[in-house]
């Protein structure tokens, strides 16, 4: 699917230049330069991810345009790429997934109350889906994001806004224990390929924290959250 669409994109400029060549050949005045080929205008989106938690910084957001596939499916096992992002905040494997046509990563950690704007564009003119994912870094494997939002028919100036809940990748037990949480609350381990939780993506039950009675937790009351945890706004700018 992806390969086919890339091919068709490549075809278009070459057909155009063939046409331009034909025009030039038919021209009466061979000294007149052929008109420069018109560059196709890419569809451009700005994706604004806002952190609306109290004390759960988000890892740099992964933003992808695709036609098939998805970063996750509810109640299905997480991909290793998703596990890597959800446990450690590293989105590079997600953005390298074969179904991703265009991928972009936010440049920075998104602090609570802050937002990041991630631009992304494509020459694809057909069906188009947009996905976003980011980790709540003061957790074992919580993430938030949107999966496969249909942006095919968004016109320039259109926007879509989502209030998004927290998911549990299901790949790491929610121990909240010292050394298991990569965010500033702990500075512990990120990705670990061992799967010691339910092994399917589901709604996150929230963190418990030491203040709420989990005696082995490195988290405190400030790290608790409820849904929604993020706002994601998609704006088509061009």
């Amino acid at each position, binding site marked *: 699917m992806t390969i086919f669409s890339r091919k068709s994109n490549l075809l278009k400029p070459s057909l155009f230049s063939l046409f331009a060549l034909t025009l030039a050949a038919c021209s009466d005045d061979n000294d007149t330069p052929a008109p420069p080929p018109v560059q196709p205008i890419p569809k451009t989106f700005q994706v604004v991810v806002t952190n609306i938690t109290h004390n759960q910084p988000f890892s740099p957001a992964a933003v992808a345009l695709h036609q098939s596939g998805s970063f996750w499916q*509810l*109640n299905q096992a997480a991909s290793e790429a998703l596990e890597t992002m959800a446990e450690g905040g590293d989105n590079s494997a997600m953005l390298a997934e074969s179904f991703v046509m265009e991928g972009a990563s936010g440049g920075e950690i998104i602090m609570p109350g802050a937002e990041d704007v991630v631009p992304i564009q494509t020459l694809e003119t057909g069906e188009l889906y947009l996905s976003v994912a980011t980790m709540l870094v003061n957790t074992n494997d919580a993430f938030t994001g949107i999966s496969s939002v249909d942006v095919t028919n968004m016109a320039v100036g259109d926007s879509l806004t989502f209030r998004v*809940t*927290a998911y*549990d990748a299901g790949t790491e*037990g*929610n*121990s*909240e224990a010292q050394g298991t949480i990569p965010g500033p609350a702990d500075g512990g381990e990120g990705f670990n390929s061992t799967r010691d939780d*339910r092994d*399917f993506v*589901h*709604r*996150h*039950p*929230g963190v*418990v924290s030491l203040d*709420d*009675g*989990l*005696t*082995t937790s490195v988290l405190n009351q400030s790290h608790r959250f*409820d*849904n929604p945890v993020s706002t994601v706004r998609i704006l088509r700018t061009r």
Partner: protein
Amino acid sequence: MKFNKLAVAASLAAFSFSSQAAQLDITISNLTHGIHFTPFVVAGHDDSTHIFQVGQAATPELQAMAEGGDISGLVNMLTTANAEIVENPAGGLLAPGASTNFMLDTGSMGYLSLSSMLLPTNDGFAGVDAWQIPSEPGVYWINVNAYDAGTEANDEIINGGGAPGAAGIPVAPGGDGGTNATGVTTEETNQTVHIHRGNLGDDDATAGKSDVDSRIHRWLNPVLRIRVEVL
């Protein structure tokens, strides 16, 4: 002219009748980390029927469902109301990560309701109260919250207590509950159906206030997602 008008009216009537007889293709998905749902009761009914109403005291039938997972009283109530009913579509408990799919022919009934108890809780349940069935065929999504029936104190003691009025939680079906808890509370101050405040739990499997595990049995809303396809 008159004849034509009558013909049009007749065809309109036939159309509106057929659009009311809704065949629903329903999928219920458990979104939680560690909560099992007891057998569901799902019904198409008229506009004066309710399994529950937020802010109103629970009926004895709702109490039996919310405290012990017993839907027989609700089924009797719905049968009396001429509802179209599906009982226990999952064939038992709906585990975390699981879904159940089934058909419901709601006939001429315009509203959909359903409910199921959350385990392990004292009287937590998830439900939909009189969702108006769209006349337009298509796929609709309902996110379902967890409610507290307001009929039993949330002591979080797992002791097999499932009969209406009996204290305690019937069971933790995942086999991940504790024992010997002293109890979280003995009071139920809001005795109407309200949004559940969630399990407190603790991390001590053999003592502590709660037999519920705070790392496993908590949840955030929504707890169920329901896909309804109106055929």
